[in-house]
């Protein structure tokens, strides 16, 4: 095996020993800040000391705040040490299906930190932030053009928030007609946020079946499209990594039933620049700027989930609305006047400006041609992985090409004693982050691999070689290598059951 000679044992049998060494002279053990002392310390020099607060007598803390403070050297070291315990895109392929872990250009970080973007207040007079509004308008134009939709609500703060915005817009549109529909149809393969959002928006969720080839079952959809259905929520490309071939028919059936067609756009990366959802009959679709447009995931966020809207839904978009007039740009911030139909507000202020800057920087860098290439390379990379692994692992939907991600199931592991979880954890020892596991739920022991377009052929080969080697080991009965995995991570496998049984959610002395 030519992989990983650094970070690899020089002895071949390491994985036989459950207690095998791991870690290296550079990786530091690091306690919690609460264990580092500093209860009376601070790492910030403040301009002055003990200001009076006599006017607040009776309103102030009874006891001093017990939180440790560390000097800057200690703080920096603490967080640098901790950081090295993370995997990251910058370290290796991060093949989490449905997550679009692509490279995050550093230019975008630099642009987001320009004082003219980072150091402006959301409620400054709009005359003093015309550049910011111009940027929002430009971002809106790109999103509208790329999706072929006439309007966009920028303010949602993540994909799920965008879903909520979309469904609330749909609800507002129905309500404006006095139509009190109560149901949303969602395919069984949908991401958890889809049903969760529908429920949060006050809808009952009814699942739509899936065909043998991993798409929406049109006959089941047709059967369930009764007049109480407010919306059909479909992910396209879907969570099996497949394009919904009948998407235009889905839209037609949905509209015929008086419902709206919500598209989960989390997988837009596969089609950006090549397919416009507006051409497919979509009424609303959120776009995860932190996926397709590469704003960094940051260990869990922040993201941004603008929602493009059809003409029918646009009047109900939440405030703020961005307007352009003779005096330049302005906001309609309240549901009055021309924006009286607005459904309300998704959040304080105007959404994720920091993410807008990054996303626009990404768009301008790629241009229309580059974005098209993004989709092509993303799909090419996924199909390459699919092709290279097809001989070793079973696929629920082997026929035809996939889109941006390749889906495998655990049929091929039957009898090996190795589970999808074990297999994924063993991948950690090979230096890779595991693929998405057990999602979509419709596929048994699912392993969903999304390489994204920013992976080189060399890295894809490194990854495929590692997976194939592991697959061979699993089939060869080398179960210990999997059951105990990972052996080479900063920690061994963690006990999640204990964590949930008696939750310890904060440090106590």
């Amino acid at each position: 095996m030519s992989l990983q000679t650094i970070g690899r044992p020089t002895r071949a049998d390491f994985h036989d020993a459950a207690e095998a060494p791991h870690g290296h002279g550079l990786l530091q053990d690091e306690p919690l800040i609460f264990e580092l002392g500093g209860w009376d310390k601070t790492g910030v020099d403040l301009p002055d000391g003990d200001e009076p607060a006599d006017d607040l007598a009776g309103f102030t803390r009874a006891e001093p705040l017990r939180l440790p403070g560390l000097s800057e050297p200690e703080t920096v070291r603490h967080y640098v040490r901790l950081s090295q315990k993370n995997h990251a895109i910058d370290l290796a392929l991060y093949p989490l299906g449905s997550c679009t872990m692509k490279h995050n250009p550093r230019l975008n970080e630099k642009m987001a930190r320009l004082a003219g973007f980072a150091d402006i207040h959301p409620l400054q007079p709009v005359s003093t932030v015309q550049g910011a509004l111009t940027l929002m308008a430009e971002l809106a134009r790109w999103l509208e053009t790329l999706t072929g939709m006439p309007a966009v609500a920028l303010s949602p703060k993540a994909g799920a928030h965008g879903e909520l915005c979309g469904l609330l817009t749909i609800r507002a549109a129905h309500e404006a007609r006095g139509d009190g529909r109560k149901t949303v149809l969602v395919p069984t393969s949908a991401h958890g946020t889809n049903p969760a959002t529908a429920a949060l928006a006050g809808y009952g969720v009814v699942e739509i079946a899936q065909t043998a080839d991993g798409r929406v079952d049109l006959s089941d959809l047709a059967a369930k499209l009764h007049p109480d259905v407010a919306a059909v929520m479909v992910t396209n490309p879907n969570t099996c990594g497949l394009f919904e071939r009948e998407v235009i028919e889905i839209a037609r059936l949905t509209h015929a039933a008086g419902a709206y067609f919500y598209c989960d756009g989390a997988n837009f990366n596969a089609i950006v620049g090549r397919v416009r959802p507006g051409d497919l009959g979509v009424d609303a679709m959120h776009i995860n700027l932190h996926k397709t447009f590469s704003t960094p995931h940051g260990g869990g966020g922040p993201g941004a989930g603008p929602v493009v809207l059809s003409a029918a839904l646009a009047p109900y978009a939440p405030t703020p609305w961005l307007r352009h007039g003779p005096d330049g740009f302005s906001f309609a911030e309240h549901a009055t006047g021309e924006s009286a139909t607005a459904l309300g507000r998704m959040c304080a202020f105007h959404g994720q400006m920091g993410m807008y800057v990054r996303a626009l920087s990404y768009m301008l860098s790629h241009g229309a041609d580059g974005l098209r290439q993004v989709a092509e390379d993303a799909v090419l990379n996924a199909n390459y992985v699919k092709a290279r692994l097809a001989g070793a692992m079973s696929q629920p939907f082997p026929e035809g090409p996939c889109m941006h991600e390749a889906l495998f199931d655990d049929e091929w592991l039957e009898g090996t004693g190795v589970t999808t979880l074990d297999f994924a954890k063993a991948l950690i020892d090979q230096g890779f982050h595991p693929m998405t596991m057990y999602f979509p739920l419709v596929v048994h022991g699912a392993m969903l691999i999304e390489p994204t377009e920013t992976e080189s052929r060399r890295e894809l080969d490194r990854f495929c070689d590692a997976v194939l080697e592991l697959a061979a080991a699993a089939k060869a009965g080398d179960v210990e290598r999997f059951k105990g995995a990972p052996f080479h991570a900063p920690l061994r496998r963690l006990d999640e059951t204990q964590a949930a049984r008696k939750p310890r959610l904060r440090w106590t002395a």
Partner: protein
Amino acid sequence: MRYLPLTAEDRAHMLGVIGASDIEALFADVPAAARREALPDLPAHAGELAVERTLAAMAGANRAAGAGPFFCGAGAYRHHVPASVDHLIQRSEFLTSYTPYQPEIAQGTLQTLFEFQTQVAALTGLPVANASMYDGSTACAEAVMMAHRVTRRRRAVLSGGVHPHYGETTRTLAHSAGIDTIRLPAAVDDEAAVLAAIDADTACVVVQTPNVFGTVSDVTKIAQAAKAAGALTIVVTTEAVAFGLLKSPGEMGADIAVAEGASIGNALNFGGPYVGLFACREALVRQMPGRLCGETVDAAGRRGFVLTLSTREQHIRRDKATSNICTNSGLCALAFTIHMSLLGGTGLAALARINHARARALAEAVGAVAGVEILTPRFFNEIAVRLPRPAAPVVEVLADGGILAGVPFSRLDPAAALDDVLLLAATETTSQADIDALAVALSKELG
């Protein structure tokens, strides 16, 4: 294209391995009618230099807060963030990692989340905090939804001191759940009205301190009344620095505390991304929205951290989840945690006092301007003042003169008929010279 590693040769080779004639073959499932050749309305790719120039021009068309005297607050406060914070959150391992679903290779993120939760719990005076929400306003809306789940009641009472954006965000979300959002009229201090509005159908009462007018309140009495009525008390804070000085929500009897955490560790960013803090009583933990990080051990018995209690969450519970939130504000939470680790309890307390002192200086100077009346009875770092005429045009004039003179209340709630009310905030970044400049400009404009 600099972000795309594949060469033409790579592509040809890979298509060969796949057994596809060309790239079009991989898009075979897309209906022909929906395939676009090009998007002519958008420009082609551009180099860094060109992109940088375009964006810098846009940035240059904004007036940065740091460019002169600055007094805007109203839910977003300008604080100094140590350079090390921004440096650390830009480390690849934090910036470019995903939600820590694989704890063995995500202890960096997980341990910082555990630290974050512990810090938020200490600040709010409540035992449990989650791993962050989008921002303070959505945290507030989620808290109301949670109160509804806990109490099974459909009436939420919001004090007139709650930030109007928070009220509107809450109303928007609550509406679809059939929750009736009672927003009391905007008022500098409305304890009596809140007490009067609590009834047996009330799921929760939402109060803010310091409130949108800057008023600092002790909400103990309200919390007691709510408790007596079987309702939850939700305490909102939009200025997290205040936790360094004021009674914590927990001390005052809050069941849930939500706050905007951006003041600590984060930049103004024109309103986002920010970071919502969410804490509650222990008994309510299984009704909480959002992620929770918990302590456990690894196979070798060493301490480690994992995401836990995920049976509350959308990816497990789907339409029965406590919230639909997935991506949250991880990196902003990290910035918060690092800044808090630098400050410590001592530092935050000192910072809070300085903020308060600056606001006192501000109140003194502005209060001395003829025609200006200070409305806020007790304040932390923000005051509401009444001008002799509508505030918005005054703010425009001062902006032309290079002073960003706060937020007219009408911007937040035009229907409140408080057009002459202006909100003015001061922080450690506000100098006496800034304050003097404001007073002079106000005198001139109003005189």
